[in-house]
């Protein structure tokens, strides 16, 4: 077995690196830049039942070592994703994790049921944490009971394992993690973005038309690392960690605090080749650390 291969519920990963949802579209643009079969997996853009246009622009604003976004779940809708985007991705030898979003349980269930039957969708990522839409699931992301129930409802209809994506905008992320574990989640992905705002110096108004947006990038990495460390010690679920990953050292850090794989979001905008670059530098990193297989890193900071 390769030194980088990793097995997670539903996922046989060549390596534990995958682009994060919303930062990679449905892969087409990056497919023009490199062979997507190199990736461990792909987390595709949030899919809702109906077509969504999303928020007015500006939708992004830069901040110190980070950025805000309020795209607003723009996506072509379940039908088109099933008919066009997923089939296109079949040309690559890479498992797809479908990010499922909605406004109420019924939406989530409908999308989960359908999309989980696509041949290349090997897992779902339940997006209960998108801060950028009025009715976009944030209520599911902050109340443990609601989260547990939604997880259970989706689990019931899904043909593939279900990962739940947690929001960092909560008092206790451990409570949320335990709730979705109780609801039957197969894994956790974390963290989604922190809610933030930036004003335009010239006008005094928020830059982002939606006023607030989700903060991502290197700025949030310390918060993400802390939360993954907490959750990995409080639940038995495998974690796909994310938040500010830009290089192989960041991957080592997320694994060290207990993640089993790592997603890369914002860094794809800074360097579109970041995912293959990280993958190519991982073995050297393992040599440096004197580690045979990457899975040995998982949780090592708790043992030290």
């Amino acid at each position, binding site marked *: 077995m390769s030194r980088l291969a990793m097995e997670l519920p539903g996922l046989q990963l060549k390596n534990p690196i995958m682009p994060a949802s*919303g*930062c*990679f*579209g449905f892969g*087409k*643009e*990056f497919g*023009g*830049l490199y062979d997507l079969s190199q990736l461990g997996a792909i987390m595709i*853009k949030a899919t809702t039942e109906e*077509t969504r*246009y*999303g928020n007015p*622009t*500006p*939708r*992004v*604003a*830069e*901040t*110190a*070592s*980070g*950025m805000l*976004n309020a*795209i607003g779940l*723009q996506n072509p809708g379940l039908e088109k994703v099933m008919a066009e985007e997923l089939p296109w991705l079949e040309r690559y030898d890479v498992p797809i994790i479908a990010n499922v979003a909605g406004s109420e349980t019924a939406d989530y269930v409908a999308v989960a049921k359908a999309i989980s039957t696509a041949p290349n969708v090997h897992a779902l990522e339940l997006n209960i944490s998108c801060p950028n839409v009025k009715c976009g699931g944030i209520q599911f992301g902050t109340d443990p009971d609601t989260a547990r129930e939604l997880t259970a409802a989706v689990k019931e209809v899904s043909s593939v394992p279900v990962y739940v994506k947690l929001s960092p905008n909560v008092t206790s992320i451990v409570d949320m993690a335990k709730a979705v574990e109780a609801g039957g989640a197969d894994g956790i992905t974390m963290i989604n973005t922190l809610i933030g705002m930036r004003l335009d110096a010239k006008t005094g108004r928020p*830059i982002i038309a939606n006023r607030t947006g989700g903060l991502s*990038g*290197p*700025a949030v990495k310390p918060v993400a690392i802390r939360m993954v460390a907490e959750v990995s010690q409080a639940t038995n679920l495998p974690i796909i960690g994310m938040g500010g990953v*830009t290089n192989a050292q960041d991957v080592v850090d997320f694994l060290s605090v207990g993640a089993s794989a790592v997603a890369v979001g*914002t860094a*794809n*905008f*800074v*360097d*579109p*080749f970041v995912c293959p670059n990280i993958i190519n530098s991982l073995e050297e990193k393992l040599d440096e650390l004197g580690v045979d297989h990457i899975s040995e890193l998982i949780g090592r900071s708790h043992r030290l």
Partner: protein
Amino acid sequence: MIIQDRMEIVEHKQIARAIFELTLRGKLTGEITSPGQFVHVRVSDSFDPLLRRPISIAKVDRDKQEITLLYRADGHGTGVLSKRITGDTVDVLGPLGNGFPIEATEAGETAYLIGGGIGVPPLYELSRQLTAKGVKCVHILGFESEDVVFYQEQFAALGDTHIATVDGTEGTKGFVTHVMDKLPTDFATFYTCGPMPMLKAVQQAYADKKGYVSFEERMGCGIGACFACVCETKDQSERSYVKICSDGPVFEAGVVSI
């Protein structure tokens, strides 16, 4: 093809108040297909600033493998960029987007190139290519004031060049539309790039003409993946949209709703 190139700074100088001319050398040059395309520049290797900056390609020199960027350093990222020195290398992603169609104007016809402020740069390469093809180019360029006017000689060398400044310190006082009002309308095509109110006014004034408009929007990825830069299209049948970065930045006049 879009490539990531560590381009060498061949020359970097200030040419007007806060306006810089940056000449870069690298193989990215060979990938450029039309005037009006842009590059996405990482101004430093640090996380602050984090995102790339979209800058139009103002001039292409294929023989030397060089491109020229003209940019205004008034924000954080362009400020950092303006301090980079000759010999340094800069991480550039590009060429991005679809530029102005030079084939839309025939040799012998007249084209109006209307630019405002930092919308002027892409029109320079456009004019070079149009005039080379035998199109007569008329340049109408608007600026805030005389001290931020740039490249007027370069444009003048290619064709009639009219300058407007808001405060009247150079050329016509007022906006490009004040110049346009006094010019004949017997041209074939217009090409424009600049601030949104200007684009609107130009599109309105020349509503019956064939024209091409280059837009700006805040960007994340620059390659069409993040949906940061969408604009609604005029065709509102099913709320359709375009991405400025990958579908544009240049669109036929009337397509994008402004």
